[in-house]
């Protein structure tokens, strides 16, 4: 018996198209379907997205002139470190958890992973202190601070699960010591530091997703609200005609 389905003869199937041959598939117009209504979830999401973050705001080619200080380097350095962490982590994940103990190349990438984590936290802490002294939550930017603070807090268990997934003496010691803190508040019942399989899953999947999602949200909020101005400029902006009473 043949396994080939009964296909009628004719030209190969393709996407239905009413366009004449050679017409570009996308015209650049905001809406393409005459039937698209304002009730479409897709249209609503697109309109809200573009309104909140028009392309020139999302990827700007200019910054207010007050954005001139070394402190601004540490925000981008945090993101750059995270990119290196994820990159080196992906290489380690590709080869599996035993590889870095067994080969020089593996140990090299483990070292890159470790040092990029140290750089990530260093850059993040300096960034955080900088933002505190700038009171960077001013002007409706509280959510920017909040997402940044939560990112820092979520990055801590992300690193801890890495330490206890190392399968070496550090992992033995840290997991057996830190378990008491987890157990004391009941967390140990579902977050068992001595269970390598569970900790590895948290370390390479669940917590990195959380960190990357939070950083993405944080960056989108920064792009949306712009970089916080110095105090007197912000106060002038808030007191400007048309702004007073809205704040």
């Amino acid at each position, binding site marked *: 018996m043949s396994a080939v389905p009964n296909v009628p003869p004719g030209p190969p199937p393709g996407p239905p198209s009413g366009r004449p041959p050679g017409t570009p598939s996308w015209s650049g117009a905001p809406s393409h379907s005459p039937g698209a209504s304002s009730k479409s979830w897709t249209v609503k999401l697109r309109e809200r997205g573009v309104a909140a973050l028009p392309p020139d705001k999302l*990827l*700007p*080619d*200019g*910054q*207010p002139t007050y954005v*001139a*200080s070394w402190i601004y380097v540490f925000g981008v*350095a945090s*993101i*750059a*470190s995270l990119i*290196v962490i994820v990159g*080196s982590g992906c290489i380690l994940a590709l080869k599996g958890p035993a590889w870095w*103990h067994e080969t020089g190349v593996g*140990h090299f990438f*483990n070292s890159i992973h*470790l*040092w990029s984590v140290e*750089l990530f*936290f260093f850059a993040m802490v300096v960034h955080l202190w*900088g933002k505190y*002294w700038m009171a960077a*939550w*001013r*002007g*409706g*930017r509280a959510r920017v*601070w*909040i997402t940044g*603070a939560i990112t820092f*807090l979520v990055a*801590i268990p992300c*690193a801890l699960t890495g*330490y206890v997934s190392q399968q*070496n*003496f*550090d992992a*033995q*010691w*840290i997991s*057996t*010591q830190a378990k*008491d*803190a987890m*157990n*004391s*508040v*009941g967390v*140990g*019942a579902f977050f068992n530091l*001595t*269970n390598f*399989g569970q900790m590895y899953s948290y370390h390479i999947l669940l917590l990195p997703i959380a960190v990357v999602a939070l950083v993405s949200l944080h960056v989108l909020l920064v792009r949306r609200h712009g970089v916080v101005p*110095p*105090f007197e400029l912000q106060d002038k902006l*808030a007191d*400007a005609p048309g*702004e007073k009473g809205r*704040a």
Partner: protein
Amino acid sequence: MSIWRTEPESRTPPWRGPYAPYDLIKELCIAVGAIVLLAVLLTVLLSSPDDPPSTIAQWSRQLPADFAATAAKELNGTSDTAEYGPPYNHSSGSVQHFFILHPQRWLGVSHPIDTAEDYVVKPLETIPNDPALSAALAEYKAASSTQKKEWTEAYAKPLEEYATAVEEKKVPPSTVVVNTSTGTVTVNTSGAGPVPTMMASLQSLAQSGGLEGGLVSSRQFFQTDYTKPLLFIADGGLLEERAEGQHLLGDQWGLMNETGSYPGQPWLWLYALWYQVEPIKSSPNADIQVLLIMSLLSLLFIFIPFLPIVNRIPRWIPVYKLIWREHYRSQGG
């Protein structure tokens, strides 16, 4: 100006001042390149630590008396793990509380460990063709719990005296003979019934490496949960001995350190700090106290924009003038 004024306004007024050219993507690419270079430089100069794990086989060979004493406590139900409480068993030795709250008990025994069965009896039952051991095990299992306790205590007591003498650098009692070259322990005691035979077999099994795999808690062929062997080895003295040499004990700010002279997890400094401060330092509920303090501080940290006084401090202490010094220089002020 009131210090109670909340700082974050509800909306962001658009910036109408001057702009300078800026290339966001180029800046990110340069930053990634710089971090890669820095990480490679640190890797080449400093590498990363990877001290091999301790095994139960090593422990039973290097510290045979400590292994035997720990195994006797597991059998007797007096080890740290046996007396721990949830999530491992129904004891209460390590159950912490905060006033009337005992969150450690809320989710019950999720990773059950019966130390006598899991660490001693079951592993011994896997040893084939040993009539003396089989007879000893049969005698032990048939005995009453009072009898079991008497036997185990008779075996454990000289080992405890030996451990105390070693710790206090005194002459150890003659009831315990440790042969360091063969890694064997002989406990000269009467009234221990079948326990010395069982312990000698357990020591041999451990030294052959056979105890490691037998303790991995899984009914599957593939195993990933090391709770049982980790807690067993942590009940003994080997991990602590290594940790002390590597400045990893709790009173050495251990949780934030790692082996060697590596930075470890310095971001845990505030967490580790509380363990050095009285009355938390000597409290049996130190862990829950520290975690609750840190949870509260974390919440305050997240909501700094809405915290009176704290959100005004940056206005009062003008660090911002240093941060935006180019801006103020260009403004002539």
